[in-house]
């Protein structure tokens, strides 16, 4: 939209939904400024940030005074406000419904399980907090269940999660599934279908994918160097 002011986003690239948002903005050349919020320094808990977002979470979007939280709400808002290609969030109701179906399911499936594996394997040890081997094994089992569902249902007869082209669903999913890589663990390594899907998604996103994930690669290097 001509004459539209840039949006501001508050991000920490260690956060999976923040990466999805940054990739979307860069890939679609949506004018934006970034303010980095360092979660490891507790910057999301400052009175200033809390005023912006009482949930004390990232990402946050500020579109010239309109403040919005929740990555899927933000992505859908940007996809419908800016002139992005239709495949990101299709207008046809049946196609859009497929993306809405995935983004709903995503929260307590892909996001929850991949996140837990990462927290147990990387964050808790890093913070000197006790780890729970039983909980970790359970998280891996739960994540396997999620990966089975991604292969057997969402990717059953199509190259991307919601159809023939990449959508917001693939973007959100891939960022979550990259997180366990921080410890050097490739959860997709024995799953050729998902490996192909990840390659396709990375190809579709090109430079913006690797740029956003540089912090993951850095942590992986440090983590595996220690072993």
């Amino acid at each position, binding site marked *: 939209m001509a004459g539209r002011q840039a949006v501001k986003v508050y991000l920490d690239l260690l956060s999976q939904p923040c990466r999805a948002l940054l990739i979307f903005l860069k890939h679609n050349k949506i004018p934006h400024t970034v303010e980095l919020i360092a979660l490891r320094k507790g910057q999301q808990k400052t009175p200033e940030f809390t005023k912006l977002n009482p949930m004390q979470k990232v990402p946050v979007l500020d579109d010239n005074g309109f403040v919005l939280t929740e990555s899927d*709400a933000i992505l859908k808002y940007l996809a419908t406000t800016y002139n992005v290609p239709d495949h990101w969030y299709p207008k046809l109701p049946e196609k859009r419904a497929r993306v809405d179906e995935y983004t709903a399911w995503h929260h307590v499936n892909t*996001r929850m399980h991949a996140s837990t594996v990462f927290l147990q394997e990387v964050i808790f040890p890093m913070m000197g907090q006790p780890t729970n081997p039983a909980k970790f094994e359970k998280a891996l089992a739960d994540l396997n269940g999620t990966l089975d569902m991604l292969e057997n249902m969402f990717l059953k007869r199509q190259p991307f999660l919601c159809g023939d082209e990449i959508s917001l669903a693939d973007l959100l999913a891939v960022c979550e599934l990259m997180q366990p890589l921080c410890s050097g663990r490739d959860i997709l390594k024995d799953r050729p279908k998902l490996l192909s899907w990840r390659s396709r998604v990375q190809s579709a996103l090109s430079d913006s994918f690797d740029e956003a994930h540089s912090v993951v690669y850095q942590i992986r290097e440090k983590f595996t160097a220690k072993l």
Partner: protein
Amino acid sequence: MSLEIYLDLFSQPCRSVYMFAKKNDIQFDYKKISLFEGYQYSEEYGKINLLRKAPAIKDGDFCLAESVAIMLYLTEKFHTPDHWYPADLQKRARVNEYLSWQHSTIRPHGSKMMWFKLLIPKAFGTEIPKEKMDNAVEDLNSSLNLFEEKFLQDRPFIVGDQISLADLVAIVEIMQPVGAGMDVFENRPKLKAWKDRVRAEIGAELFDEAHQAIFYAQEAVKTMDPEKIEHFKPKILRYFLS
């Protein structure tokens, strides 16, 4: 007219879809299923929804799961009044914001109360350790506090002056612990006033009808055949108590 909606009204997201369809006079074939009896694991249901959850719809050949996706699809398909899911992109974003946030907050925290306070002790005969119970109650309270502070504030409804899908999705989750005998509205006058408004907007009769299974949950669990739900026990205990 071949819209089939698969529902078990004990389930919160089934109630929001049911009330939404009824309130908007959407004609549908009501397919009543029983989650406790494990229908979601049948081969038949697998043809409708491989995620094996309720609700699900089959509109002609088009199958769809996830209550949020279903209601967004129905608003589009049946051209329901704008206030449910406003065309204005910023108002719409506010609805989406709530619909997103609730998945990992109010929904699991409210759900857990039904399992912890009623189903696990009464149907499975397993007591919940005090620490787990206290944490669960605290989680629900934190979510309800955030709900009031951020999503409700001083507005009559979540997104403004009129009811939307956000309120519909919120109310069914907040009602779930009520079925377990927990009065979530005690000491929360703002929340109670909102609940009364939402119930009036939906229509008291429709609201109460949809919530029958919840209102009678404590009675129903006394007459529940333990053998019928035994198959669930290991999965549930692992999910909640490991």
